[in-house]
């Protein structure tokens, strides 16, 4: 299960989607809107995304995770639009036979999502706002069809 959505995220359905009868462990990560960043008080966040590409890149992260860790399944939901403090912007669920792989793969997936998926957040404070510049995505040295 992969989605970029404007609706509140549902952890239960994501966990149900990745769970299977061979799985002994599920690790679920919640990215949550904090009330503060770098010393500034955050009122709310506004997320923008290149939705089609973001969905494609979420699936690419999942493929990378499946190739790298012996996990059973992975699912990712990312919310966009306006999010209030305490709301969940990102859910990553990983299931596996045993816990170590699930923890490591889920952590890796979150790192890679932040490095590769074209989504942006704007922090809105009492007295202004700013689009946060995070990671510059890695670009292939030689283009596929160039």
């Amino acid at each position, binding site marked *: 299960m992969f989605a970029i959505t404007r609706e509140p995220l549902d952890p239960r359905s994501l966990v149900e989607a990745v769970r299977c009868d061979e799985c002994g462990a599920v690790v679920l990560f919640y990215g949550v809107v904090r009330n503060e960043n770098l010393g500034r008080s955050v009122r709310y966040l506004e997320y923008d995304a290149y939705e089609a590409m*973001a969905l494609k890149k979420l699936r690419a992260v999942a493929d990378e995770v499946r190739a790298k860790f012996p996990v059973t399944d992975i699912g990712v939901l990312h919310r966009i639009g306006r999010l209030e403090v305490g709301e969940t912007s990102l859910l990553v669920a990983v299931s596996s036979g045993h816990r170590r792989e699930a923890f490591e793969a889920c952590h890796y997936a979150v790192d890679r999502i932040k490095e590769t998926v074209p*989504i*942006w957040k*704007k922090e809105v404070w009492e007295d202004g706002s700013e*689009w946060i510049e995070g990671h*510059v995505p890695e670009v292939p040295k030689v283009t596929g069809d*160039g």
Partner: protein
Amino acid sequence: MPQVHVRLFAGLHDLVGKRDLVLDLPPGATIGLLRERLGEEYPVVQPFLSTLVCAVDEEYVPSGHLLGDGDDVALIPPISGG
């Protein structure tokens, strides 16, 4: 003469005030040339060009990538999802 469709997001969308642009480029144009042209036609974009990467057809591409007529180019400022 290749005509490309350009997508703007986040801060670039706010600055330019549009979600999409169409740019006419000379034959043999690369992503690098497109970036130059953008800086000329939309000076507000200039400060962002150094950290901007581009995607064509939903894949990141290097500066030397050749553009063809009808290509779908997305301007990707540093990402901050999660």
